[in-house]
């Protein structure tokens, strides 16, 4: 017989209430782990970017376009091995208006720089040969039921089509990817097709220029030199390695990330209230029992330890249950779907050991903290007063 055994047996009292509390803790842990995994996956997306790839965009914001002539100027710059460009198309299939996907109008050599796309040589060739051809990710193709050779029509909010000439494409290639950081739901079209169809005032503009450098270690210097080159031109640029570029995109999403982080903490707060309520009720019901223990010679510190141990144990069991549910649900369920559909934004959607440890240690600490007030309540009464309490 020991106090730890007494704490374990304490979980067997009022089983319905204790089990309900442990389930509530497990759901809170599951939600906390999910939200923290979103944050971690989001913030580490940049880590998957190649070190030698630079992105040049408008200095004010990456939403504003650059002149097409910059591409050639960039390509001729010192330290640049390859250069390509793309513009955000913003396409949507009117037949599937609830499905959103990313669509880029890309240059002919786009796939030389973004070589993480995995596509057969024949399909690639057919895509490059057809100006109205499209290359789509396999996840997107499966979702919308597109096959190679299929004719599809898209609408664009950024580049509205003329009423008599809609944006029509033929699916020429379907790509996959080995890395989870590659979004397999992207739609690629030819920039030349877009450019030729635009009014003259909007022609010959690109969203951003992507380059590969000759030496990844010099990427910072090369980026600075590029921006210096356009410093006194009509449009100033900002060049970053892809990791920094993604970090700046991330910074734009920092409010969302902060909101997710706040929600995850609110969930822990709600969990602590549920746990605290259960422990508080349990102690209030057992004041007489604690009086008996003190009558038997147990000092207040034993009772405080017992109550905190009971609370932490309940939190630990709930936390372990939550983690046990999190792994299959997140890593085999939600995580797979997220990696397939949002791989660019949330690559490697896996529970890190740090998150699991944070969740587990967090619930144990919270379990201990919420028990402090009930423990004080249990030990502040005189033994004679506690013995008069009705169990």
């Amino acid at each position, binding site marked *: *017989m020991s106090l730890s055994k007494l704490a374990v047996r304490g979980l067997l*009292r009022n089983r319905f209430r204790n089990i309900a509390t442990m389930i509530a803790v497990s759901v809170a842990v599951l939600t906390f782990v999910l939200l923290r995994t979103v944050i971690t996956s989001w913030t580490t997306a940049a880590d998957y970017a190649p070190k030698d790839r630079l992105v040049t965009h408008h200095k004010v914001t990456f939403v504003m376009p650059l002149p097409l002539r910059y591409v050639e100027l960039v390509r001729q710059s010192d330290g640049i091995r390859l250069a390509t460009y793309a513009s955000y198309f913003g396409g949507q299939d009117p037949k599937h208006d609830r499905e959103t996907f990313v669509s880029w109008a890309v240059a002919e050599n786009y796939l030389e720089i973004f070589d993480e796309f995995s596509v057969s040589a024949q399909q690639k060739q057919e895509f490059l040969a057809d100006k109205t051809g499209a290359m789509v990710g396999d996840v997107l193709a499966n979702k919308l039921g597109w096959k190679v050779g299929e004719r599809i029509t898209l609408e664009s909010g950024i580049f509205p089509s003329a009423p008599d000439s809609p944006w029509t494409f033929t699916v020429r290639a379907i790509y996959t990817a080995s890395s989870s950081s590659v979004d397999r739901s992207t739609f690629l079209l030819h920039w030349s097709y877009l450019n030729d169809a635009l009014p003259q005032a909007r022609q010959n503009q690109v969203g951003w220029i992507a380059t590969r450098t000759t030496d990844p270690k010099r990427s910072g210097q090369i980026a600075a030199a590029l921006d210096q080159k356009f410093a006194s031109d009509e449009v100033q640029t900002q060049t970053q390695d892809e990791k920094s570029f993604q970090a700046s995109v991330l910074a734009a999403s920092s409010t969302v990330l902060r909101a997710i982080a706040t929600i995850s903490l609110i969930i822990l707060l709600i969990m602590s209230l549920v746990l605290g309520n259960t422990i508080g009720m349990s102690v209030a019901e057992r004041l007489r029992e604690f009086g008996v223990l003190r009558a038997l*010679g147990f000092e207040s510190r034993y009772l405080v330890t017992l109550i905190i141990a009971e609370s932490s144990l309940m939190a630990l069991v709930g936390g372990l249950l939550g983690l046990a549910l999190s792994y299959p649900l997140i890593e085999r369920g939600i995580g797979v779907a997220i990696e397939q559909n949002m791989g660019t934004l949330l690559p490697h959607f896996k529970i890190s050991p740090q998150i699991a440890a944070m969740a587990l240690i967090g619930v144990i600490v919270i379990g201990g903290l919420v028990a402090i007030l009930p423990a004080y309540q249990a030990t502040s009464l005189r033994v004679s007063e506690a013995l008069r309490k009705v169990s």
Partner: protein
Amino acid sequence: MSTAVAAASVKKEQPSVQAACAIRLHGIEKSYPRGGERVQILDGINLDIAEGSFEALMGPSGSGKSTLLNILAGFDRPSAGEVTVAGTRLERLSDSALTKWRAGTIGFIFQTFNLMPVLTALENVELPLTLINLPRAERRRRAETALRVVGLEDRMHHFPRQLSGGQEQRVAIARAIVNDPSLILADEPTGDLDRQSAAVVLELLEKLNREFKKTIVMVTHDPVAGERASVIRRLEKGVLQ
């Protein structure tokens, strides 16, 4: 002190006057504030209880019997006066020291048994031994011995809900004696029991007093229970008669 001893009704063979004092109370007062006034519960109690005696404390409800017992056990403190139990001045001890002292000196038997519902009879009896640095096997052995003394060796692994009231009280007695205390305090130990179970419990208390030389102070309403004690003291309105 001597007046109280003289006032006691001697029912059986009284312990020798020369016997050492297990309990000595001097000028004990206890009052509580209630509705802006102080209610006097105990009023100038002087009392000596000799080692090895079995005394019953009787009186009507509200006479202060249980309050006096709580003071003897160190559950409560007097408003005034000196309490010496087993040679220790209780009012000088801190709460923590008082608790430690209680663990080694007092065995307490409650009217409502107060067993831990989630522990077996054996574990309940073993509970006070966790405060002593004893090997697990030795704790187990002592708890089993205590249960044998109260005749419950065949109910060791039963939970309180699986025992009758009389059996629960016997487990509580085993818990009270497992630390081998010199003094056993019992608050209405037969109050929740039927006549037959009450008789078994009283026989046990007599046995503990007679064979194991335990000093026993028992608060009771029940005249039949009081008859088992060697000395009966009566308390009325906080004053020993």
